[in-house]
C-alpha cells in the first residue's frame, strides 16, 4: 500500500474516536442525529474494513509507524491478514447490533452511541497494535466503554452484573500490567516483533522470568477469553446486557483469543530457542476443559441467553485448544470456526430478545424504563409494523432460530458445518512437526468433545425451540420491526455466504494460519518498515 491508502491503517482507530467525541457533544434529546452519525461512522468503518481486508490479502503486511518513529522505538500499527479479518468481523457485528439498537434500545440509557464508538475504537486498536503497552491502552479503552454499555438500560440485575464484571476486569488488568512489566524488565522492549527477536537469546533465569511474565500476561487474556476456570464472570454479565450490547460483546472474548493466537506463535514459536512451545499444553488442556464446561452448561440451561453464553464458551474453548495445537491446518479451521461462531452467537443474542419478547415479563419492564426516560417507541412501532402478519413473524423467527441452531450444532448447509468439518478433518490428519503417537490421543479428545458439543447443543436447542414455538397454545405473537429482524437475518445470510464461498474463504484462512504460525516475515516487515522521508512528510 502506498500513498494515502497507507493511512487507511489507522482509520479504524481514528474514525470511531472522532465520531465518539462528536457524539458526546450532542445531548440525549437529539437521538435521531446521534443515531445517524453513529450509523454513518459504523458504515464507513465497515467500508474501510473491507478495503483493509483486500489490501491485506494482496499485499505484504502494512506497518504504520506512529509519529514516524522507527519500529522498536515508536509504537507501530500492523495490518496483516489476521488483524484485517478481525477488524472486518468487528465492523460487521457493530453494524448489525447498531441497526438492531435503533428500534428502541439506544434510548433506554444515556450515551449509548458515544460508548459504542469508543468500544469499536478499542477493539480495532487492540487488533491493529504491534506494541504490548499500547495493547493495554486499547484494552482499557475497550473495557471502559464495555462497562458503560453493560450498564446501559440500568436496573438492579445489570448494575449487579456490572459490579462483578468491572471488578473481574480490573483485576485482570493488574495481571496484564504485571506481565507487561516483567517482560519489559527482562527484555527491555515492548514491541512484539522486537520481543520475538530477543526471546531466543534469553537463557537461564531471564528465560524463567520471561515465561512467568508471559504466563501472568496470558492470564489477563484467558480471563477475557473466558477459559475455564477463569470465565464464570461471562455467565452473569452477557445475559444481563441489553441484546445489541450482548451482540457486540461477542467480539470482546475474541480479542483475548486474538492476542493469544498472535502472541503465542510469535513469542514462543519454533524459533524461540529454549522458550519454544511455552504454554501450548496448558492452552490445549484449558481449551478442552472450557469446551467440557460449556457442554455441561448448555445441557443444564433453561434460559436462551445462558445457552448463548455457554455456546460462546464452547467457541472460545475450541479456538483455545486449536491455538494450543499450533498446527497450520487446525489453526486455519479454527479461524473459520471463529468467524462463523462469532457471527452466529451475535445473531443468536439478538434473536433471543425477539423470541422472548412475547413471553417474557421482562420486556414490559424495559418498555416502562424507556417511557420513564422519555422515549415513545410504541406508537412508531405500531405504525411501521403493520405489514408483517402474525403467522409470518413467528415463521420468520422460527426460521432464524433453526438457522442459529444448525450453525451452533454444526450441521449443513450453513458455515457451522464447514467450520467443524475443516477442524475435524485437520485433526484427523496432523501435518505439523509434532505429529506423534502421543498427539493422536489429544486429537481424539478434541474431536470427541467437538462432536459432543454439537450433540449437547442440538438437544438443548430442540428442547428450547419446541417450548418457544410449538408448545404455547395461545402463543403471543411478538411485535417486531423490520429493522430488528434485518440484522439477525443479515448475520445469518453472511454465514450462508461463508459456506457458499467456502473455497476462497478457506484459502484466506489457510494463508492467515500459515503466516501466523511462521511469524518471521511479520517480524522482518515490522522491524524494517521504512520511515517517511522528511521532505515527503512536509509535502503531505
Amino acid at each position, binding site marked *: 500500500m502506498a500513498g494515502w491508502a497507507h493511512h487507511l491503517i489507522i482509520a479504524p482507530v481514528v474514525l470511531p474516536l472522532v465520531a465518539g467525541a462528536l457524539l458526546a457533544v450532542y445531548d440525549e434529546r437529539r437521538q435521531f442525529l446521534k443515531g445517524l452519525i453513529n450509523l454513518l461512522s459504523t458504515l464507513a468503518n465497515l467500508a474501510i474494513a473491507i478495503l483493509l481486508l483486500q489490501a491485506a490479502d494482496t499485499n505484504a503486511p502494512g506497518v504504520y509507524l506512529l509519529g514516524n518513529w522507527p519500529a522498536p522505538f515508536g509504537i507501530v500499527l500492523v495490518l496483516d491478514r489476521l488483524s484485517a479479518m478481525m477488524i472486518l468481523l468487528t465492523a460487521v457485528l457493530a453494524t448489525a447490533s447498531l441497526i438492531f439498537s435503533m428500534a428502541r434500545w439506544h434510548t433506554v440509557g444515556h450515551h449509548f452511541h458515544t460508548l459504542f464508538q469508543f468500544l469499536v475504537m478499542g477493539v480495532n486498536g487492540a487488533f491493529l497494535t504491534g506494541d504490548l503497552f499500547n495493547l493495554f491502552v486499547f484494552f482499557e479503552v475497550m473495557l*471502559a466503554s464495555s*462497562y458503560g454499555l453493560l450498564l446501559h438500560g440500568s436496573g438492579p440485575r445489570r*448494575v449487579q452484573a456490572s*459490579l462483578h464484571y468491572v*471488578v473481574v476486569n*480490573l*483485576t485482570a488488568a493488574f495481571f496484564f500490567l*504485571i506481565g507487561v512489566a516483567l517482560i519489559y524488565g527482562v527484555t527491555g522492549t515492548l514491541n512484539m516483533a522486537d520481543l520475538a527477536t530477543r526471546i531466543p537469546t534469553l537463557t537461564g533465569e531471564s528465560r524463567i522470568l520471561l515465561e512467568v511474565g508471559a504466563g501472568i500476561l496470558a492470564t489477563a487474556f484467558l480471563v477475557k477469553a473466558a477459559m475455564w476456570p477463569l470465565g464464570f464472570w461471562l455467565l452473569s454479565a452477557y445475559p444481563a446486557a441489553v441484546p445489541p450490547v450482548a451482540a457486540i460483546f461477542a467480539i470482546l472474548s475474541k480479542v483475548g483469543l486474538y492476542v493469544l493466537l498472535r502472541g503465542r506463535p510469535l513469542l514462543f514459536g519454533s524459533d524461540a530457542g529454549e522458550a519454544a512451545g511455552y504454554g501450548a499444553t496448558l492452552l490445549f488442556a484449558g481449551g478442552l476443559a472450557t469446551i467440557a464446561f460449556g457442554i455441561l452448561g448448555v445441557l443444564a440451561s433453561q434460559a436462551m441467553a445462558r445457552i448463548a453464553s455457554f455456546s460462546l464458551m464452547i467457541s472460545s474453548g475450541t479456538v483455545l485448544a486449536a491455538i494450543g495445537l499450533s498446527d497450520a491446518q487446525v489453526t486455519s479451521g479454527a479461524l473459520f470456526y471463529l468467524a462463523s461462531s462469532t457471527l452466529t452467537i451475535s445473531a443468536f443474542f439478538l434473536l433471543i430478545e425477539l423470541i422472548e419478547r412475547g413471553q417474557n415479563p421482562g420486556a414490559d419492564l424495559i418498555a416502562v424504563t424507556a417511557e420513564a426516560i422519555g422515549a415513545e417507541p410504541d406508537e412508531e412501532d405500531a405504525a411501521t409494523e403493520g405489514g408483517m402478519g402474525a403467522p409470518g413473524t413467528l415463521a420468520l423467527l422460527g426460521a432464524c432460530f433453526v438457522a442459529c441452531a444448525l450453525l451452533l450444532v454444526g450441521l449443513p448447509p450453513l458455515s457451522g458445518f464447514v467450520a467443524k468439518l475443516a477442524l475435524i478433518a485437520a485433526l484427523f490428519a496432523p501435518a505439523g512437526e509434532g505429529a506423534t503417537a502421543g498427539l493422536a490421543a489429544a486429537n481424539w479428545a478434541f474431536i470427541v468433545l467437538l462432536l459432543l458439543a454439537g450433540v449437547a447443543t442440538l438437544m438443548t436447542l430442540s428442547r428450547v425451540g419446541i417450548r418457544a414455538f410449538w408448545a404455547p397454545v395461545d402463543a403471543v405473537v411478538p411485535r417486531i420491526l423490520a429493522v430488528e429482524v434485518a440484522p439477525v437475518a443479515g448475520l445469518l445470510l453472511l454465514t450462508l455466504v461463508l459456506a457458499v464461498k467456502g473455497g476462497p474463504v478457506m484459502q484466506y484462512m489457510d494463508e492467515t494460519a500459515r503466516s501466523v504460525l511462521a511469524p518471521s516475515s511479520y517480524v522482518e516487515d515490522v522491524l524494517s518498515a521504512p520511515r517517511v522521508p522528511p521532505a515527503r512528510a512536509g509535502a503531505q
Partner: protein
Amino acid sequence: MALLLATCIGILAGSGVWLLLRPRTFQVVIGLSLCALAVNLFIFSMGRLRSGAPPVLASTSGTLADYADPVPQALVLTAIVIGFATTALLLVVLLAARGLTGTDHVDGQER
C-alpha cells in the same frame, strides 16, 4: 532499597488481595486501589532501581548510563491515569448498586 521496595509491594498487594476478597463493595474498591499501587510500584521497579538519575536527557554530554530508564515511568503514568478513571467508574457502579439493592454486599443480598 530493593528489599524495602519489595516488602512495600508485598504488603500493599497482600492487603489489596485480602480486601478484594471481602464481601463489602467499599472494601473491594479499597482493595483494588491498594493492588493498583502495588502494581504501579512494581512496574516502576522494572526500570531498575536508581536514585539521583533523571529519566529525561538534560544535555548531550555524558552517557546514557547516567540516566534512568524513562519507559517504565511513562508506563506507570498511563497506568495511574487509567486506574484512576476506572476506580471512579467503579465507585459510581457501587453507589448505584447500593441504591438499587439496599445493601453494600457484593452479591446484592446478605446471605
